[in-house]
């Protein structure tokens, strides 16, 4: 067994009424100013309007920012931070997908330190003390950002993903409410769901840092995702499917925060930064090519995962690949970079994408060491 460290500092609450839960909790606290973050799409939804109205009724001064962009962006983080510092916000509530939550995490760094230059905090384990309380309410089931110790933002000037990691970055409270997911469109349900599938598989096979605890989370998470993701896509208002995929996503999020991810994420970060492809959908494209590559040297990890997930002693990595392939067909996600909208790759572009992936932090957790040629080969395999 690996030596391991396992931690989760986020309180996870599952509820069918997040508004009641938060209002009740706020009622017991003496919060003078609250920063509420969301995106434009969500701010137009009735459930969000009801939530905002409930906050108004409590008469807690609230600074609302509802224009968070997809992919947390450094410029947006700095803009919100200026607002939050000026209003002396004491609590952040973020409601949205991974971009909103990652944006909130980074704003929290700036707000706590009263320093809008977020790039000063780029790094791993750099934060030395607790940040202000952050409560998050995920509206997708996939990113795991509600419980993770990391935030990824895009620097528009360099088209690169910027990584921040710290135990202090995680939210104080994650509130899971499946009712928030029933309006999620099919593509986003599928794409974020495949992000969660990728987290669970890569966290299990991250052989340097995984543990029996992360393994158990990954196995249970995958069982739920394979069982319920097709239904969540086909029948969006099916609460049983929504709650199971939501909880599975959080479980995979706790797992990858403690054991890491791998080559699929490294490639998805590289492609996503260059072509603005959806992170989960890009993971979905690379998942099978990534597993096949790793199985050349490390199939044993995928074999044991398959045995556990399928409750079948004879199952192996081939069953896992077949199940993923069937899932991609069922949820109708693109299976190649080309169908994801990535233009034809020149040699120079291929080199750049592979070079970026080679130094992506995710890759250090991969069970197999890769070189530039390996990465180029996986990209080319995934292209068509």
């Amino acid at each position, binding site marked *: 067994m*690996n*030596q*391991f*460290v396992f931690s989760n500092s986020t309180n996870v609450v599952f509820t069918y009424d997040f508004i009641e839960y938060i209002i009740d909790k706020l009622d017991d606290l003496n919060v003078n100013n609250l920063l509420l973050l969301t995106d434009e799409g969500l701010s137009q939804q009735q459930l969000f309007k009801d939530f905002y109205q409930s906050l108004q009724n409590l008469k807690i001064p609230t600074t609302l920012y509802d224009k968070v962009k997809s992919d947390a962006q450094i410029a947006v983080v700095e803009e919100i931070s200026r607002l939050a510092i000026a209003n002396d916000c004491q609590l952040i509530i973020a409601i949205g997908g991974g971009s909103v939550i990652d944006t909130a995490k980074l704003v929290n760094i700036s707000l706590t330190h009263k320093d809008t230059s977020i790039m000063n905090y*780029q*790094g*791993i*384990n*750099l934060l030395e003390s607790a940040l202000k309380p952050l409560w998050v309410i995920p509206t997708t089931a996939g990113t795991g950002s509600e419980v993770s110790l990391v935030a990824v933002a895009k620097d528009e000037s360099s088209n690169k993903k*910027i*990584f921040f*990691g710290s*135990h202090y970055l995680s939210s104080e409270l994650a509130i899971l409410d499946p009712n928030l997911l029933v309006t999620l469109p099919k593509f986003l349900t599928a794409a974020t769901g495949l992000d969660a599938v990728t987290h669970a598989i890569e966290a299990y096979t*991250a052989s*340097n*840092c995984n543990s029996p605890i992360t393994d158990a989370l990954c196995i249970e998470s995958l069982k739920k995702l394979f069982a319920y993701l097709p239904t969540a896509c086909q029948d969006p208002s099916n609460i049983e499917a929504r709650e199971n995929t939501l909880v599975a996503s959080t479980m995979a999020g706790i797992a990858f925060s*403690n*054991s*890491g991810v791998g080559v699929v994420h490294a490639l998805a970060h590289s492609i996503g930064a260059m072509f603005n492809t959806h992170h989960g959908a890009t993971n979905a494209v690379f998942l099978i090519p990534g597993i096949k590559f790793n199985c050349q040297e490390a199939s044993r990890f995928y074999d044991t995962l398959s045995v556990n997930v399928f409750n079948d002693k004879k199952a192996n990595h081939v069953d896992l690949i077949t199940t993923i392939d069937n899932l991609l067909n069922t949820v109708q996600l693109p299976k190649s970079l080309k169908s994801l909208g990535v233009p034809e790759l020149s040699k120079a572009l291929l080199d750049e994408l592979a070079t*970026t992936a*080679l*130094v*992506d*932090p995710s*890759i*250090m*957790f991969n069970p197999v060491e890769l070189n530039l040629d390996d990465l180029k080969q996986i990209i080319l395999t995934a292209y068509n």
Partner: protein
Amino acid sequence: MSIFKDSQELDTVMEQLWTKIRQDPEMSKPLLESKLIVTFHYRHPETKLTIDCSNGEDFHIITGENQVKPIIELFMKADIAHDFWLGKVNVPMALLSGKIVSKGPINKALALLPTVKPAFKLYPSIIKDLNIKTHP
């Protein structure tokens, strides 16, 4: 108790190691091409080492305080550095457990890893020649 008796001994070891890295084109060429400036902050004993490859032609090894602004900073106990150069540190685990702190673009720091790996073979002889007693 640390492997190194004091900051001076640690400085000597790291200067000798990086001088050998500088003399080896297999390692120095990619470092110079990267134009990176890396500062290592060690504690127990405390010292600071800056490797400045910014001019792309030769790299400077600076121990102690200096005015060079690093692109990447790495913070760790001196014993972790010692274990790293012996090839005994699980870097992902050291990052996850907080034993290594990095400031700046982590991807650039990770890019250094494969470049300096050949130095793992050089390090034991430096320790031996300086008669530094290591734990079993």
